[in-house]
């Protein structure tokens, strides 16, 4: 009796959540199986796998997958590495530490679009950009970043925004590192390297896992930074999966194919999530 009542009382929220999830998912799957070209609305009807086939055989598909994985992987390595180094560096008391921390964290509070614009016009611009100015100062030819190294540019932009996130998580975790443990290690004759490898890294295993998981989820679907800077180009050099879907849907006006891409993206995200959760699950067990 009480169980039925409990179920009944839970029902509205469960149903709402289900609708929230299932309706868009169902519609995406549905769209991915019909012909849905905005330019020719009169042609419709069930087409089976052909939208998927179309998306798969798109010459941009494999480059987009590769770009997505490169982007996520490089950003993870840079942000975690840099985040660790900076967090360790500022984890001691010195005058101006509070201000420095706020400054270090602040890029994270800038909107991705603004961030991308900022980098495009103030850092990477071949004439006005800071990098070009430096290059000029040393008498070098300025690099046209967005043309010559588009994916690298996007990686830099995203890393700049997300390193603060890693710093923030790591510094919080370092603050509850037991100082007596450090002192015991000092008495045991452990130098900085040994303390880092045997004490600090294991202590940070969990926060590192959390940073990797959260960032992966966000970076699989990076869009604004690419849209604002390179528009996926030149060619498809900086097109990732999210951008490819966008290109299909709104540049190709083909909702059917874009939906098929969407479904593929969901599957990709789930595969990545599966491995991540296993990896993190192992860490959490410690």
């Amino acid at each position, binding site marked *: 009796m009480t169980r039925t009542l409990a179920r009944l009382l839970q029902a509205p929220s469960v149903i709402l959540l289900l609708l929230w999830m299932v309706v868009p998912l169902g519609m995406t799957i549905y769209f991915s199986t019909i012909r849905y070209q905005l330019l020719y609305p009169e042609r419709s009807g069930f087409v089976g796998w052909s939208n998927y086939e179309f998306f798969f055989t798109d010459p941009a598909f494999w480059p987009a997958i590769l770009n997505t994985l490169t982007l996520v992987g490089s950003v993870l390595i840079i942000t975690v590495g840099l985040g660790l180094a900076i967090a360790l560096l500022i984890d001691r008391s010195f005058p101006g530490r509070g201000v420095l921390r706020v400054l270090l964290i602040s890029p994270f509070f800038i909107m991705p679009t603004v961030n991308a614009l900022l980098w495009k016009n103030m850092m990477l611009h071949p004439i006005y950009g800071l990098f070009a100015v430096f290059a000029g100062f040393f008498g070098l030819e300025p690099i046209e970043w967005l043309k010559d190294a588009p994916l690298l540019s996007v990686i830099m932009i995203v890393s700049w925004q997300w390193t603060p996130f890693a710093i923030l998580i790591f510094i919080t975790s370092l603050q509850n590192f037991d100082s*007596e443990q450090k*002192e*015991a290690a*000092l008495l045991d*004759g452990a130098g900085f390297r040994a303390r880092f490898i045997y004490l600090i890294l294991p202590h940070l295993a969990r926060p590192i896992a959390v940073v990797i998981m959260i960032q992966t989820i966000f970076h699989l679907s990076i869009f604004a930074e690419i849209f604002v800077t390179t528009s996926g180009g030149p060619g498809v050099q900086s097109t990732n999966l999210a951008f490819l879907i966008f290109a299909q849907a709104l540049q190709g006006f083909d909702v059917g194919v874009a939906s098929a891409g969407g479904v593929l993206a969901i599957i990709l995200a789930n595969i990545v999530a599966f491995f991540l959760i296993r990896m993190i699950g192992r860490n959490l067990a410690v």
Partner: protein
Amino acid sequence: MAGLELTSVKKSFGGVAIIHGIDLSIRSGEFIVFVGPSGCGKSTLLRLIAGLETTLEGNIRIGERDVTTADPGDRGVAMVFQTYALYPHMSVRENMGFGLRMNGVDKDDIRKRVDRAADILHLDRLLERKPSELSGGQRQRVAIGRAIVREPEVFLFDEPLSNLDAELRVRMRLEIANLHKRLGATMIYVTHDQIEAMTLADRIVVLKDGLIEQVGSPIELYDDPDNAFVAGFIGSPRMNFLDAKVVAVEGDHTTVSLVDFDDIHVRLELERPLAVGSAARLGIRPEHFDASAEIALTVPIEVIENLGGIAYAYARTEDGNPLIIDIKGDRNVVEGKDFTARFDAARAYLFDPETGLRLR
């Protein structure tokens, strides 16, 4: 094994002087206990010896070596922390072997030494566990084990038993005493616990506000304190202090009258006579009241704490000064009634009320 020599060691934090100049000489193999009120600098002094705080003034020698500026790892000292400070991600074996590993001892040797230490501390069956899978007492033993495998010249303990329950404390206390006998190493031990201090120490160092008040064997400090602070600090419950006034001096005998008990005179033997009329404080330990003694003080009893074998009566003099009396389990003493406590003049100590120094 090595002795230890501190010469006018000072320490201040952010301009505030905490340790005001400590001179202390510790013999090789000695068990030294630091006691003193909270915040007096016991831990700081221990950390200075360990090298966890930098010594800017004064000099620290361990054995033949001046270690004043040496790194903590190079001083040949091992420390057992109050919170144990075990490495949570390492097994007991790895915890104990870490120091040896850092010093490049080879694997087989580490294994042997850890096994030996585990044997001494009965940790054999826990070696593969993580610290989180151990009880408090077991963690404590691992912390001690981590110290002994390194075979240091000096062991430092900072309140190592204060997180354990009473029964375990007694057991670990005995184990530490045995360990000291067995290893014969120099040990410095900080504690708040009277019993630990009295039972473990070869010599006790009483600290107050960053200065040494007195150094001596437990019995010396108990029988012959140099000042009112040490007299009050050593012994439990603490010594009673009563205001007194010198009324007569004849040769090496001085007679004082107790201010709270108008007509009671106490005649003491003093080497250095006092001026008639000067003030003094008379100290008498609760356990030195004795029904067959000569001098009688009659006071109303407020509370009795009866522990069975021993019982303490808490009284208050007319002027409101507290008086604690060990009534030796006397069942006839009643709360709310007057009681006559007796003591011998020979058991009383006299102190200068201004400086707190003992008047002998």
